[in-house]
């Protein structure tokens, strides 16, 4: 599964896709990783990412990666969430939201959920632009060089890399194989 995701991501980075799709996938992965799962908010965000054109393979791959690291930020997220949830001017909206149908199922009143949401949204934009730029730079500067380099060809003979390459060829089809 991971091999497939890696392959799909490689295909996406090298194919004629918007760089923003990969970047958005990674940004969403960060957002979903920062928000604890098991609540309606996380599920809704996850469904949204399925409906919009983001790179799902990149999203899932990075989500798995970020999820491993997310607990390290729980203390920070808790403080951030607690600070937001305790702002006096936000009490009325939060109380209203809490009494609305379904919304409490988002567990927005949980400090880590709220902290994760705020942090994830705040980080979404810079992460998006960062990765978008990285993809663009890759495509402009490295893509063709890497594709023709001896190193890549040598690496292609390493079993793990070979399996990724095979997956890339299967996924990318002729489009990539001709280049």
């Amino acid at each position, binding site marked *: 599964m991971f091999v497939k995701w890696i392959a799909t991501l490689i295909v996406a980075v*090298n*194919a*004629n*896709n*918007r*760089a923003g799709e990969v970047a958005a996938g990674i940004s969403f992965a960060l957002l979903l990783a920062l928000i*604890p*799962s*098991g*609540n309606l908010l996380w599920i809704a965000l996850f469904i949204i990412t*399925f*409906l*919009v*054109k983001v790179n799902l393979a990149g999203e899932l791959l990075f989500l798995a990666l970020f999820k491993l690291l*997310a*607990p390290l930020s*729980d*203390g920070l*997220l*808790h403080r951030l*969430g*607690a600070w937001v*949830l*305790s702002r006096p001017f936000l*009490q009325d909206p*939060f*109380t209203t939201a*809490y*009494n*609305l*149908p*379904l919304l*409490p*199922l988002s*567990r927005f*009143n*949980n*400090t*880590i*959920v709220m*902290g994760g949401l705020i942090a994830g949204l705040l980080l979404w934009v810079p992460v998006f632009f960062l990765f978008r730029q990285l993809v*663009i730079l890759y*495509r*402009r500067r490295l*893509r*063709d060089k890497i594709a023709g380099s001896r190193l890549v060809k040598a690496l292609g003979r390493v079993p793990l890399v070979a399996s990724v390459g095979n997956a890339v060829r299967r996924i990318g089809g*002729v*489009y990539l194989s*001709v*280049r």
Partner: protein
Amino acid sequence: MKVPKLLKTELSEKRFRKKVIRRIYIESELRFLLGLYAKGADGRYRRPEQLNTEDTRRLQQLARSIKKNRGVLRTGKVSLLVIVIAAILVFNFVFKNRLLERALERGLESVFSARAEVDDLSFRILSGRISFAHLSVADREQPFRNLFELGATEVDLNTAELLKAKVVVTNLESREIGWNTPRQTSGVLAEDGRAEKEVSGDRGPRKGLSLNLGNLDAKALVDDQLDKLSSPAQISALNTRLKTLQQQWQLTVDKGRRDVVELSGRIDSVRSTDVRSLNTVPELQQAVADIREAATALGQLKNDAQAVNTQINAGREELEAARSAFERAVDADVAYLASLSDLSSGELRNLVSDLVAGYLEQTLGRYYGTARRVKGYADKLITGAKDKRPDKSRVSRRKGGANIPFATVVHPRFLLENAGVSVAGTGTSRTIEGSVQNVSSDPDLLGRPVTFAFSQIEADRRLSVDGVLDRRSNRENDLTLGVQAANYSIELSEGLETLGLRSLSTLYRFQTDFTLSRLGDTADGSGVLELYDLVLQPAEGQDMLGRTLYETLGSVTTVAVEFDYTFSGRLSKVAARSSIDEQLSRALKDRVAEIAAQYESRLREEVSARIEAQLEENETLYAAFSELEQTAGGNLADVNAYEAVLEQKRSEVEKRISDSKRQATDAVKSELEKQLDQIKDKVPLPSLGF
């Protein structure tokens, strides 16, 4: 191989830049396109018409990727989602009512553990209103009867709470209600094939009071207690002693008799002696000697007879004492047997109270059984909800977060805020009103117990029940219930035979406060039952108790019975005190004494019957002993008579001797005087001359 339309031979500059170039993100691909398409003088971009296979394939790939890069939404997945949502909505609209009907039936079945049916349910989502034409829930313990039925009913739901997966019924109104109604089909659930046995307080007919003489089985009682009676042993001992005495004295007395008979010859010989005929000294001497001999023999015999008589008399006294002891033993045995039947009138004193207590035990037992069932239903509602309740405190495996509470009204997963039923009499004079509030799956969360009230008025009969069912963790009691009834009737015909009554009917007013304790499943309470317009039918025959009851109860207009009761599991205890107890006690006291005397007499007869053989033997032995005693007495009497005879003869002989002596002396004297006179004439005697 054909090139897609998007990358046709000639494109306008605007289209080429907006639709193609703008969607190419790979530098090499861009260079390839710009190398292929050349801008003409008219500003339009053109490519060669004939392309090699590789370029054609590359253009196809590019066209495909350009298409894919349009827009931000995945139209396929969005369409799929829309279709799924539409399907759900259509399915919901078409099958909503049926699904809800089944869900409601399943919910009721899980709570009441019996089949439930809901007909013609209609759910209006926007108004949050459910209505159904008919609802019935079977009685688990009587599968062919309904626990309750509702007619046309409307239910107002809190739709906002429905979205939170909570069923909050703000109001339920029904215009028809029925309970314990018959069913056409069995109400047993498929997975619960066996109906539980009745666990209510119906404990069968009350055991009759053993106060009727006809019911006092003296024979069986004596048979049962025979080993514990002392009189049979005493009569046996008495008979043994009689036999011993009989054997001991029979020979002695018989010998005495023979001696007496033997002596009688001598005595007769003495008696027959004609003393006057005894003229000579030898004859007299012989008579005296005979008398002396007979007297000597008689003296010996008399001593023996007296000794025997004295000892037989002592034996008789001993027997008399033993006989008295036996009679006392019989009295004691009869008293003991009578005491086992408790004819002390202690139970009779509370006869009416006991009679009512028996009725109350059954009636209140049913209330107790119903209360336990209601409690069980409430527990099922609560337990079922708790089992399904998600762990809200868990957000994910990550820890460290905290849930910030905001002001809100948190409802339980199920809440019935108010339900009311009102059945006005149509065609009948019956009016029913009932309501229940705060039925919830989480009473602790709700913070209020279930309250209910019910009243029924039919003609002049009134019944009202109100109560509080509390399943909160900090409750004091599980259930408190108040029941008031007026102008209802009691008709008893079973269990009255022992009281000498055939039937009893009365109107009554009833009031009780019933509490089902939190601990031990124990119910207790107290109340008052007021009986009036008593109608008694005496049993056939002349039963004293029945007559007394009939007369006493017939003489009062009202009987008030105060009662306390305790139910625990299958055990029950009802204590009642009636206003007529004292009066009835006095009236019964005399009758009971009469019954007791008759019973004791019967017991005495039964005890006597058990020792009849010994008694007969005793009579025989006693008669024999009396005969022996008489014989012994006769011997002594004969001896005494003989003694008298001898004494008389002795006197006669002595007199005869005395007379003979005097006659002889007189004769001698006369002869001497005669001879002296003769001599005096012949022999001169000196004279003294004075």
